[in-house]
């Protein structure tokens, strides 16, 4: 049973802990010297394929380098209780300053909206105004609001990244050799990870060749090979990592529809799920923050459906929602041993970009 004792906190060094110390179930990176990689020749590997992405995209760095968070400083447990009051007024001052800045910016924005230059004035009485000839179209429908340049640039980056991610995911799903099945495909900003179930090392080698024939410039690094029993039969489970280098921004055309708020995006996403018969197993809205003129909302969801439905759903969302950036996409079986059988789960970690209202 789970035994928790907060009095015995782990000692934290400057170096991060080895992954296998904390989660015994997670497969560790096997020592290459011990594994038989005779079917794999690393000298054949070409340069890794690049994905076009503007370097100006927000940094993915979620971590801050700070002091040891796992330790409890002994000096805090002095006889005299520490005085917290000195820190509190500064915090409040910064909050007030922040609120004041926001109010001033909001007022300036309103003034700009009301009095921006180029506004046409009503014509004087009696003046002849040359109107364009009617073409029979309905001219009363207002044009869609222009998408701000900052958002357009972000949309292009998102669409390029999402399209590439989906292309790789679909490509891997459709790649394969005889007697091999995918058990996991993960797409992130800098790499793709796959797990493959195979009958033998020869099958794993054939799988690699099949993937390379589809993606000649990809560099497949085999990370693990271990035995796994499936339905009473012994198989091999191989894990691959494929590095991806970020490149320049894409040139895909940006949809001209007006930008959606995050709430509108969520409701349209639900409607799309219903269209494809996809269920939600998990949904969580994470941190919301501002970056320049954009609001960014982090969103996490796990979806369940047939493999075809999930892929068609992902294809449509990447086309319809340019405000969405897929930070991580994981596809794995739901109740089955591989992705070729039954239903699948798609776990999405998304950043949603919307203009600040």
């Amino acid at each position, binding site marked *: 049973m*789970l035994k928790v*004792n907060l009095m015995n906190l782990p000692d934290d060094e400057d170096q991060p802990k080895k*992954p296998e110390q*904390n989660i*015994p179930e997670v497969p560790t990176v096997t020592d290459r010297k011990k594994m038989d990689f005779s079917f794999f020749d690393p000298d054949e590997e070409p340069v890794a394929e690049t994905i076009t992405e503007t370097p100006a995209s927000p940094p993915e760095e979620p971590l801050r380098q700070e002091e040891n968070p796992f330790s*409890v400083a002994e000096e805090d447990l002095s006889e005299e209780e520490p005085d917290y*009051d000195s820190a509190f007024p500064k915090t409040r001052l910064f909050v007030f300053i922040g609120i004041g800045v926001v109010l001033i910016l909001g007022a300036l924005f309103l003034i700009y909206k009301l009095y921006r230059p180029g506004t046409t004035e009503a014509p004087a009485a009696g003046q002849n105004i040359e109107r364009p000839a009617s073409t029979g179209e309905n001219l009363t429908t207002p044009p869609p609001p222009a998408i701000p340049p900052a958002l357009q640039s972000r949309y292009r980056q998102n669409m390029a990244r999402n399209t590439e991610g989906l292309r790789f995911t679909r490509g891997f799903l459709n790649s394969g050799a005889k007697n091999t099945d995918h058990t996991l495909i993960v797409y992130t900003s800098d790499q793709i990870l796959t797990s493959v179930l195979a009958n033998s090392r020869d099958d794993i080698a054939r799988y690699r060749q099949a993937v390379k024939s589809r993606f000649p410039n990809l560099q497949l690094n085999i990370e693990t090979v271990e035995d796994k029993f499936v339905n009473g039969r012994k198989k091999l489970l191989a894990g691959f990592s494929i590095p991806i280098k970020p490149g320049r921004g894409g040139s895909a055309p940006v949809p001209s529809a007006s930008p959606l708020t995050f709430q509108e995006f969520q409701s349209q996403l639900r409607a799309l799920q219903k269209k494809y018969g996809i269920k*939600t*197993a998990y949904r969580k809205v*994470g941190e919301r923050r501002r970056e320049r003129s954009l609001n960014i909302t982090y969103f996490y969801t796990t979806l369940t459906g047939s493999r075809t439905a999930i892929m068609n759903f992902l294809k449509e969302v990447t086309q319809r929602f340019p405000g969405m950036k897929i930070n991580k996409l994981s596809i794995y079986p739901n109740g089955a041993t591989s992705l070729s059988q039954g239903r699948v789960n798609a776990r999405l970690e998304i950043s949603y970009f919307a203009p600040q209202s």
Partner: protein
Amino acid sequence: MAERINSISFHDNYLCWAELEVNSSQHINLVRVAESPLPFTLNYNTLKTGGSAGQAAQLLGELAEEHRFSAEESRFLLSARFGLIKKIMLDNTLSSVPLRDLIRYEMQETLTSAAEEFIFYQPDYRREWNAAPNALTIAFRKDVYNFFVLVGKKANLNVTEMNLNCFALDELVRRLFPNLIGQVLLVNFTDHGFELNISDEKGFLDYRFHPYSKSLESIESIDEAEVCESFGKMISSLLHPEAVDHSLYSISHLFVFGAAFKPGWLEKLQPYSETPIKILDPFESSEWQIGCEDAILRSLGASRFVEVLANVF
């Protein structure tokens, strides 16, 4: 030889102190118990205020003197509301990302303040959920941790363990009733809401808090009908959540207990649950013998002291 332990459970405005005698033949004797409201409500402001730990320590000293608590070893049991418990799904082949960084990144999406203000604790937890391994992480505010360490020090208590009640309660149920098959829901009636523990025969699954009302009213200020209605809403939100299309859990056993629970509510709560509701009574265990020599304590019922009992395992 029997071991004597002080087991002290803390909630935001209340504490319960029990001296227990534990011997190796699976026998626990509840020697003496004391309950008391705290002189303040534990929250962000009171933690920042100097003297709160001293007041709590003084209260413990008074209780020790009045009730003659004499055990050498003390164990604190804290409400899981003081921490943030999260299961983080891992990908098997993410070997290039240090696990600690991955967990901190995931936790940062949930934390309401900077990660530097928290201690991250990862117990030895082995579960798979949806074919992916899960890492259990507890984020505990350093302020809260330091507060309780200081309370123990000022009260001259030899505090050897500090646990969260959700894990201790899971351990208690599995030890006292090891033959329970299927998912078990423990509903702890506290002052401001239900503390929910979900587990199965493999171990801990989830912890949640469901307030009696949106304004976090005390159970003393709401009537019986409102408590029952809130219980029904809690069950419904757990088994039929809005954001997903199917229930995450399939509860086979439902136990109720807690300092704020009244045994007379049992019949009134049953219509709100399809699963039969039972009172968690450690005296009914056939695996462990729970004894209590104090007639008044026995009359109050062991369901009131489940948390302090849980701290001994």
